[in-house]
């Protein structure tokens, strides 16, 4: 590849990554429930993305493309383990940092409740609420039926609502439209 083409490729990659790094990291962090692992997964994902950047025809699809790479890298990372079982009372410092107090009780309670959700419930919630994915997009991304997505989202919210209710914390409607 000549110097000019290489420069343009790097510029394109850096532009995409700079814009999307935040969502990639948060997605990786909520998948792995460990900021340290999330950083490793994102780094590995960026390297893979760089290698196959030419397969991304439309930069508007970069978010979905990169999130798919992050999902695969996370799966590779946990290939031989069962990340579902995390004892919230025995978290590593890195894991604990993820649910550290923010000073807002409702947010803290919810963050801990989300942290404890099973992967099957947590991931579609992250994709819908944080990434703005539609039900169809979540289904495609996770390789499940749209009906299954809605069921998981429904159950996830009920679990979170139950956790908040049990904590006695009241969520103030800030922008309930």
């Amino acid at each position: 590849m000549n110097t000019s083409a290489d420069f343009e490729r790097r510029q394109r990659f850096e532009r995409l990554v700079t814009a999307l790094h935040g969502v990639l990291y948060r997605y990786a962090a909520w998948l792995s429930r460990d900021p340290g692992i999330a950083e490793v997964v994102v780094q590995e994902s960026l390297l893979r993305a760089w290698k196959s950047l030419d397969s991304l025809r439309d930069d508007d699809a970069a978010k979905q493309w990169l999130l798919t790479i992050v999902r695969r890298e996370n799966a590779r990372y946990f290939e031989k383990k069962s990340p579902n079982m995390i004892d919230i009372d025995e978290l590593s410092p890195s894991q604990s940092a993820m649910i550290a107090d923010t000073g807002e009780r409702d947010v803290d309670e919810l963050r801990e409740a989300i942290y404890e959700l099973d992967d099957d419930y947590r991931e579609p919630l992250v994709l819908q609420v944080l990434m703005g994915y539609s039900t169809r997009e979540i289904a495609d991304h996770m390789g499940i039926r749209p009906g299954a997505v809605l069921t998981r989202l429904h159950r996830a919210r009920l679990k979170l609502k139950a956790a908040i209710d049990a904590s006695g914390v009241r969520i103030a409607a800030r922008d309930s439209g």
Partner: protein
Amino acid sequence: MNCEEYREAIAGDPTEFFPGGAEHSSGCEECSSYRQELRALDECIARALAIDVPALRMPELPAIDAADNVVGIGSAPARPSSRITSLPVWAGLAAAVAVVALLFTGGPDGATDTQQLVREIIAHMDHEQSSRQVTSVPVSDRTLDTVVDPEVSAMDPDIGLITYAMSCVINGHTVPHLVVQGEQGPITLILLPDEEVGEAIPLSGDNVHGVLLPVGSGSIAVIGQREEQLGEIGEVGRRLSETVEWNI
């Protein structure tokens, strides 16, 4: 749509973009209130999910021709045959003694190109500080197999708990960068099949204490963060020297 169906649907998609949703909530005060409650919950969920994001660390991006071959760097232009089989035990022990002595006394200056390699390794350590975490989570075999391409190099998988494996570019070559958990902290291993050095060279910098060891027609960098790790680094270096093979 009845209330039960509405509540199930709204909990799946609080935006209410589902058939019959708006019609139902406009005529049902309880469900309308339930919708408001879920939207407030969602707003709070969004803030709970928005954890702090660390500064972007752009990985070292290999030149694209090299990148195409990261997994199969063995397919790079052939070098003279340099397959190394395990070295005799006495050689390993001698190397260990030499390494430890070198680490504590400092070593001779290398040639200019070797010094360039040393600078790149130390700069790379600064760049990838997050790789050196104390953790008990191993990398997957698949990741390890991808990073340590068997067509290029092989190493004893029992070297220790490998918790990080990444293909990195150092001195223009894409090489395996591993981290193994030592008794006194993480130890970085960088396998450099293309970098021949004449003798062991100490590596020293901020939080960098280690050695670049000659292994056949290549070399390996073994690096800790603290001076107290030098003894263990010597031992790991010895074991790696004995077991690593270049298959190119």
